């Protein structure tokens, strides 16, 4: 119904116009210390128009899905494009893209729309109980489970008509341990583009136990030391390296601004062990969708192939500028934002070493586990936090210490990747780049050298 209305109104638009419709159904249950803290469901629905007129973009959105308002946003978008044109120096041109007419729905075994919520509430209550019962020193916890069910439509004046339903189910556990005036926290998460079957594949209870174990253990641990060290990055945090150290700097808008990768196509930017991919169709990936928010099919984009920089991530606009094909990386958080270049599922490919084999080569170093937030500058300097640093002495894992933030220059850190493990893990991420978005991050365990921001 809404789609028919949008299609009809789009016919009257000026210049190149897009209309997107987005309905987001969410459900959240969060249990804190045995009590329901959040039990929440909601719907956010709206549409937006983007117009390109003589090389200038305009954008407008609304939550009122009536004929007049749809005409209004189409008109506003065109007017904004015209009004801001004199202030813009660069005329935007778009790379050509086939206008697809298609439908896609997240493959699901258990569609959350068809299942009651009572069972989920019960599950989260039970996990919270187990987490708190893990050890006497667990002081507090929060267990959360979310369903985000997006209905998306993309219509363009070029004739594209794409309907997608993307369902993401994800959860996390936060645990605080206290002992003798010390406090330690730990955090773990699961999640996929999938139905509720994700809870069978990667039980929330398992990560609850992991988080409880970590907080409980680290409460009496010291903070890791500071300095340059050989480290093994756990598979669950290697995605942070892929995302922060290289990913952002390979987004074509940042490349255009002069990121450190801007003159590196065809050049060596990492050790030959490293193959780094951003894949929009990784099965179950948190950033998986069949089409991006410009109606371009997503694809597997190899950014670094055996150490050599091969491609950047593009929107239609940057693809035209760089003279390549769009890669399907233009994504918007919701109908209130225009699409910008975003990663989808970014990972380093696995090789063949076991964790023990990786450790064998390390005389003095750390096995860094559990990710926290990260950030990168366009010059390749990146950082991300770790929760736990297990000391490695002569190839043996010894004491567990509190993790610290690590940093490095992407170039150096990736050149120092001596060996890559076999155990691949993909996990969820939320990336903030002007607007937030779901992103998958992954990889296997690997060895490199980083600066650890620890204590004397």
């Amino acid at each position: 119904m809404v789609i028919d209305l949008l299609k009809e109104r789009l016919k009257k638009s000026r210049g190149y116009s897009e209309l997107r419709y987005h309905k987001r159904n969410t459900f959240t249950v969060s249990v804190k210390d045995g009590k329901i803290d959040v039990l929440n469901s909601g719907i956010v629905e709206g549409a937006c128009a983007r117009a390109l007129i003589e090389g200038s973009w305009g954008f407008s959105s609304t939550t009122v899905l009536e004929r007049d308002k749809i005409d209004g946003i189409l008109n506003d978008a065109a007017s904004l494009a015209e009004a801001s044109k004199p202030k813009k120096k660069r005329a935007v041109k778009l790379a050509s893209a086939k206008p697809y007419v298609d439908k896609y729905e997240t493959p699901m075994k258990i569609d959350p729309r068809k299942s009651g919520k009572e069972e989920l509430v019960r599950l989260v209550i039970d996990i919270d109980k187990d987490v708190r019962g893990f050890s006497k020193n667990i002081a507090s916890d929060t267990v959360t489970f979310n369903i985000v069910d997006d209905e998306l439509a993309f219509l363009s004046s070029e004739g594209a008509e794409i309907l997608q339903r993307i369902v993401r189910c994800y959860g996390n556990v936060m645990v605080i341990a206290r002992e003798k005036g010390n406090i330690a926290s730990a955090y773990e998460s699961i999640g996929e583009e999938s139905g509720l079957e994700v809870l069978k594949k990667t039980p929330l209870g398992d990560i609850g136990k992991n988080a409880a174990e970590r907080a409980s253990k680290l409460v009496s641990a010291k903070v890791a030391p500071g300095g340059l060290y050989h480290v093994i990055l756990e598979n669950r945090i290697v995605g942070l390296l892929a995302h922060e150290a290289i990913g952002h700097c390979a987004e074509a808008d940042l490349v255009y601004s002069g990121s450190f990768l801007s003159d590196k196509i065809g050049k060596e930017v990492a050790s030959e062990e490293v193959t780094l991919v951003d894949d929009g169709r990784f099965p179950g990936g948190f950033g998986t969708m069949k089409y991006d928010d410009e109606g371009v099919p997503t694809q597997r984009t190899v950014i670094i192939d055996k150490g050599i920089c091969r491609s950047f991530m593009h929107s239609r606009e940057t693809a035209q500028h760089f003279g390549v094909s769009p890669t399907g990386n233009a994504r918007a958080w919701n109908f209130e934002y225009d699409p910008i270049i975003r990663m989808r599922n970014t990972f380093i490919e696995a090789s063949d070493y076991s964790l023990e084999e990786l450790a064998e080569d390390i005389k003095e170093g750390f096995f860094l586990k559990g990710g926290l937030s990260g950030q990168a500058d366009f010059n390749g300097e990146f950082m991300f936090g770790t929760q736990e640093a297990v000391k490695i002495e002569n190839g043996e894992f010894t004491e567990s210490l509190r993790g610290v933030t690590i940093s490095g220059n992407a170039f150096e850190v990736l050149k120092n990747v001596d060996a890559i493990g076999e155990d691949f893990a993909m996990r969820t991420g939320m990336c903030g780049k002007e607007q937030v978005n779901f992103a998958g991050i992954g990889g296997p365990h690997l060895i490199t050298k980083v600066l650890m921001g620890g204590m004397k």
Partner: protein
Amino acid sequence: MSVTDLTRLAIKYCEKMGVDEAEAFAQSQRIIEVVLERAEIQSERVKTQRGIGIRIIKDKKLGFAYASTFSNATIEEACRNAKSLSNVSVPNPDWVSLPTPAKLPKPPSGIYDEETASMGGDEVLNLAVRAYDEAKGYDKRVDIDDGKFSLISTDVAISNSHGVEAEENNTLLEGFLICMAKEHGEALSMAFEYDVTRSLRDFSPERIGRIAAEKALSSLKPKAVESFVGKVILDSDPASTILILPIISSVNADNVQRGRSLWAGKLREEVASQKLTVTDDGLFPKGIGSSSFDFEGVPCQKTPVMMRGKLKSLLHNTFTANKEGKKSTGNAYRDGYNMLPSISVSNLIVEAGEKKLEEMISDVDKGIIVRRFSGNVRPESGEFSGIAKQANYIEKGEVKYSLKETMISGNAFQAIKNIIEIGSETRPTFLRAYIPPIMIDKINIISK
């Protein structure tokens, strides 16, 4: 229909369904955003963002639902959804009551500005252009990476089934620029500068442009320094992230009640240097977090949090206050209409000291100054570590070269005991905290 009409309507629906208590929170915002990207005005967005969140309690069981459209039908549906969620919920024995009506103070002065509220897309665009021109014109080596200028005009209303009713308007202007300085064709350093005010009169895009350019230039030609343990001057923004975030977390009554705060049971004890006095002031004139009521409709107030290093009060919402038989301090906060209220600061104000930043620098024999922090802070334990960005080495009272690949680490709860000096120049930061530069000692400064 006014937003209060909508919240009243929601309460009526809920009461008809037979709930024990109901609360409706509605927000209507007009937002204009101008985004700069790749040294260019990338997009301009005009948004109308509206929504209503319904919280209901039935037999001490919670249910919450929200909707982004304001029709009678969607509001009724949200009320029904909240009710049906409460059916699958479990009772919370600690639940006492939603707030009851209390006399609200007058709206704090300067939180709403008519001229600002009526700004159009062109005028917001003009702010971005002014900041842009100032930065570009400052020095040939300076370029702009990205930035964003926003106007947010908000109308918020709360009603509950006990008769609480409140509505208020406010305006907010925010803007930031990320500049880079290039030398010999290579981009070497990046710098961030921002401003946030309630009115156009107080907002200076030129200042943002000039300072972002200055900061980018002062980060050129970086050098590494040997690792040492010593003095660090944190500018307002990093001081807020590193030192204030753990304080905010630790005085949150919910965290204290749950054993998530190291300050549980430490009221009236000395937890920081005597130089540190912190107040939460919801009524602060022109404050970016000021309002006459909090997001449960409870009157905002001024709460002394820390007096000369001694912990004076925790920050409460109605739930945590009821649990202790106390009065809420008016610190219920929501990130949006789609969230349940939690606890946060209104305007957290660190009492300014005497010295200007230059005087603080001149007191340092050996140390560093950090203007941006890219790292992680664990608010519960106070551990922090990350990259010192836009940082310079200080020797014998003078700012020397900028620092390359340098990290800092320490513990915020130790650091606030080791405060050497609090500066005189306070500014608002993104945590709704008003913070001057703060000099701390015994911090790990780490390089390769």
